[in-house]
């Protein structure tokens, strides 16, 4: 259980690696009803739209970012805000790394601000994000 008194600004959230496959991208795009062929048709992607390879969806990276916050939070609070920007494209074959850290803690409101990132193998942050979570007040030490 997360106790807000135990959290420290600067602490890292667990990191995770993702290597998309053309099957996982096909399934993701089928699930979100996105027919754009840059996510599953390599010849179309490189010859018609002139990308260097199959494009890993920006919103999929957003979902991975959101999971950094939600998997860390578990049932110990709620997500209040979540933002991200797709700054650079990522292509099939790349391994991406998600993670984050605590940047602010407000014990009065029980709110914790998180900085989130998706990095590529070169270490560049390609999708930065942020989230604010509210830790459940029952998680105050000594309560309930």
């Amino acid at each position, binding site marked *: 259980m997360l106790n807000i008194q135990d959290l420290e600004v600067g602490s890292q959230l667990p990191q995770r690696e993702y290597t998309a496959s053309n099957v996982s991208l096909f399934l993701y795009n089928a699930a979100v009803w996105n027919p754009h062929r840059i996510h599953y048709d390599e010849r179309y992607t490189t010859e018609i739209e002139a990308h260097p390879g199959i*494009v890993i*969806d920006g*919103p999929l990276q*957003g979902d991975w970012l959101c999971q950094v916050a939600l998997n860390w939070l578990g049932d110990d609070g709620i*997500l209040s*805000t*979540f933002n*991200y920007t797709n700054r650079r494209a990522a292509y099939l074959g790349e391994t991406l790394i998600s993670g984050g850290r605590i940047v602010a803690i407000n014990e009065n409101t029980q709110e914790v601000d998180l900085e989130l990132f998706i990095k590529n193998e070169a270490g560049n942050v390609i999708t930065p994000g942020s989230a604010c979570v509210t830790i459940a007040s029952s998680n105050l030490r000594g309560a309930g």
Partner: protein
Amino acid sequence: MAGGTKLRLHRSIRPGDVLVGTRKIVNVYEKQGSTGPLIFTVRELTITTADSEPVMEEIQTSIAR
């Protein structure tokens, strides 16, 4: 292509809630990218209960080139 998302969640949804979603285009603008012009479209999705209690707001940017 996707440009990003901003999400604000006001409360959890519960069984029995009747939710109303409204989606609108709030901005369209052009920028010069390294490979040519880019058109940014910003859409807002607002979800409330049937009694207009706020549940969620989402702003999404998509980029056409």
